[in-house]
């Protein structure tokens, strides 16, 4: 239905509420946004701002309480658990902060895992090419315990890309890495966007990581409160965040949430 649009992922009025009925926690409070094809978006915000929930809802890892999510024009709300799994397998790639790899499998086996799960046996050269693309062609036979943290993350990127997904989601991909390894992973993500037109959505709390993106979404209290496009630098992002923290909007939001909690 959205064949004409270039938005790979759209979110419309997404609300996500957790916790018990007596003490609800609103993680997302009516988020409407979209991620255009071939762009690199960074999602930022303080702890508890809902940035991880936004990523999980957008990726179909979690179902929102309200609102519509589409990936490649497919409404995730309409899908059953198995269809959702297949969608994740075929259209979505993931890179988590840590524990991305199955420890008993080699790097190459980890990379081909999604295709194996889909019942396909990828040609060895595809796997080799994927590892080569992340600069790890010589590490194919190593197990995760024999790889550095940065190398593990790059294997995770290679695995995420083996299915040629419509969109790659990364949740704090550099959170557990030192700055050199972080730079390598971020350059790799940037190159995927520039060279292959890959759509990437990355959650981070690090302004210097966000500086690699084309667009930065700022979240606070479950809402998109700001957006930066063009000329993004770490300093600019940090400045904008500091600005928002001085803004009193958050406090008023908080009061609203408390009232809401009591009314239920």
């Amino acid at each position, binding site marked *: 239905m959205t064949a004409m649009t270039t938005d790979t992922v759209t979110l419309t009025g997404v609300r996500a509420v957790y916790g018990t009925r007596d003490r609800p926690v609103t993680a997302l409070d009516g988020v409407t946004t979209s991620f255009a094809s071939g762009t690199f978006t960074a999602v930022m915000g303080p702890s508890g701002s809902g940035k991880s929930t936004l990523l999980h809802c957008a990726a179909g890892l979690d179902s929102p309480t309200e609102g519509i999510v589409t990936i490649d024009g497919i409404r995730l709300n309409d899908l059953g658990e198995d269809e959702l799994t297949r969608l*994740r397998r075929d259209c979505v790639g993931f890179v988590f902060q840590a524990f991305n790899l199955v420890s008993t499998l080699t790097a190459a086996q980890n990379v081909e895992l999604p295709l194996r*799960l889909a019942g396909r046996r990828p040609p060895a050269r595809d796997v080799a090419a994927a590892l080569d693309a992340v600069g790890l062609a010589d590490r194919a036979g190593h197990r995760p315990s024999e790889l550095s943290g940065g190398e593990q993350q790059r294997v995770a990127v290679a695995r995420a890309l083996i299915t040629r997904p419509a969109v790659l989601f990364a949740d704090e991909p550099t959170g557990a890495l030192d700055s050199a390894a972080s730079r390598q992973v971020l350059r790799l993500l940037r190159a995927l966007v520039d060279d292959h037109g890959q759509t990437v959505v990355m959650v981070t709390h690090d302004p210097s990581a966000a500086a690699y993106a084309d667009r930065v979404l700022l979240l606070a209290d479950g809402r998109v409160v700001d957006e930066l496009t063009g000329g993004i630098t770490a300093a600019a992002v940090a400045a904008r965040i500091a600005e928002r923290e001085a803004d009193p909007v958050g406090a008023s939001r908080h009061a609203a949430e408390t009232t809401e909690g009591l009314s239920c």
Partner: protein
Amino acid sequence: MLSIRRSASAFVAVAIGVALVATATLLLASGRPQVPDRLAQAAVVVQSPEAGTEADSFVPTRPWSATAAAELTSRLAGLPGVAAAVPDRTFYAQPLVGDRPSAADARREDAHQGHGWSSAQLGGLRRTAGEPPRKAGEVVVDRALGLRTGVPVTLLTAAGPEPYTVSGLVDAPGVYVADEVAAVLAPGVRAIGLLLAPGADPERVAVAARGVVGGDGQVLTGDERGALEPRGDARTRWIGMQVLTATAALAGFVTVFVVASTFAFTIAQRRRELGLLRAVGATGRQVRRMVYAEALAVGASAGLVGLLVGAALAPGLGRLLVDVGFEPATFAVRYAFWPVAVSLVAGPVIALLAVWSASRRAARVRPLEALREAAVEQRPIGRLRVATGAFLVAVGAALSVGTATADEARVAAQYALYAVMALVAGATVLAPAVVGPVVRLLRSPVRRPGGAIGMLVRGGALTATRRTASLAAPVLLTVAFAVLVSGMVRTTTAAYAAGRADNVNAGWIVVPDGGPGLSDQAVAAAGGTALLPTTVFRTDPGTLPENRPLTALGVDPAGFAAANRALTVVAGSLNDLRGEDTVVVTASTNLLPSEAYELVFADGTLVPLRVVAVVTDDSLPGDLLVPRAVVRTHDPSALTSTVYVRDRIDPPVGARIVDVATWAAEADAAEDRLVWLFTLLLIGVSAGYGAIAVANTLLLAAAGRAADLRLIRLAGATRRQVLWLVTAESALVVLIGALLGGSVAFAGLLSIRAGLAEQVGVPVDLAVPWSVIGGVVGLCLLLAVVASVLPTWRLLRH
């Protein structure tokens, strides 16, 4: 994704389980009736009609009378292909060596059996020395007794010790007398052996013989002749079968549980990996299939190992079973096909059953769990699990009621076993729900001296109730089983002894010593009131089953009435029990005094009797009473089982004297001993298993807790404090398991006690063998502490 380290414990558990199943089934398949050596040369044997009853009551067949046997023998001898038809007579005769029955082969029933010399041809027995017995007073005995030909020997018979002369020796157990003598001692015949002419086909002869015999017996050839083995051997083997079946069933059952809890544990530890798989595109079904495949691989390989181990162990265990009396001396292990097939299938089946619940949980792992740091379990217990647990507990309770109300001890014991299985399964399933309250209950003693450690132990047990429950499950299983089974056996034994003692009004009791019964001479020497039991058969067209066997007691009515407190006469008078045609029956026969009652006795004759009195069913330690002389007339080899006397006397030859309490406790001593051995065997199997399971799960748990413990260490705990923590944790787990298991078993024991008290009519004390229970709990505790402290100690050293 199969990890050797992770599956090792499941592998060991399945391998041991299959080894036990393989051993038990191999032995089970080996325990087949043996054709007695005495009849080995008779290609076709005609057996008197089976006494229609359950296969496990081991009563003899209904004999032919002397005339019927003679007529049948001559007709069979005339069949084409038959060289000779020989009636085989069996009676009680025991050679005394040095004035006492030879103790060498007291357990072999055929050692104190006598036969006519013509029976020797049926077994192809050859004399090793001397001459066959030709006249009364001559006997051929077993060479193994160490007697020489021509020397005098005393044979203990039903009448008493009798002087004989050894005329010859054979290389087989038993004694052989002249046929005329045998015909007097054993007028009834239970088997006629056919010796075939050279070249005759046994099957064709059997067909012809069936035509002659008709419904008046069974024609047996080949292995069917095993039916002629001594009934005592059949009974011993039946007990052995029960032991082996129970061991195999228990091993399978326990293995499923142990492996299930191991799998449940590995799944809980792998949540993050499973979440990752789900995130990168594995469907729930794929995860489930993967878990099944792993279980299948573990089960199949462990099953193969278990089979090999079991096959290697079977011969040794078989010899052990013979030694302790669970199998007759003729038992030997044979490697049949079906036990091998069963064992090969058992491994994968056990593993798949065990992983069923874990796989459901694995499939429910959500992709987001790959991101969670330490997943705190949300719902301690699912709805399906509660329903399953409640159902199992309900079944267990129903079976307990069945135990308490069952009429027969054997049925009650079976109910009790199933009841405890259901209760234990239910308790294991419901354990996570119970762990919280139990931990809170135990809080006060742990809190004060424990301090920080107490807090950590409690916190861990309370938040991860499922983990705590799966750790406690094997302890629960082991303790419940040990308490229930040992308590049940002890209580039952004591209850029956109390009931028996309560029924007897006598000072002392004379019982046989080293033989199957007392001779008439010994009875006369003892004085008092004697019981002379014999098996009789009801053959009325209306009775079911056909040829129903009954135990008739030959008594002197006045003495019996005085010695038996349980006796309650409903109609008629016991004093009329005299003369050749009187009988006292129980109320359940629905007969009235002066009605007619016909019975076939051991000599095969049909004797018309008249009812003179009716007593309540629980009045008699048998089915009916007849005058002692009637039994003696129709069963020359009947032996007296018991003589009640008032004062202590010197026991006659082949007898000893005991007080009532001892007699009551001893009455089933041989069987009680077997049952107790059996019980210890079962408890040993389950306790060994439980201990392995406890160690297994704790080792796994220790590996999974490394990060936690390091954190606690960083938070300022000393190494010793951490070691105390894990010790306290495992002790708590064992305590929870022991408490839950103990209470389940105790509930079962109470219902059993109620049932027994009803049955024996006296109050029954609960007999709980604390040493067995203490041993089992101690073993679990020891292994639990070792299995958690050792890996922690190693961990903390780095």
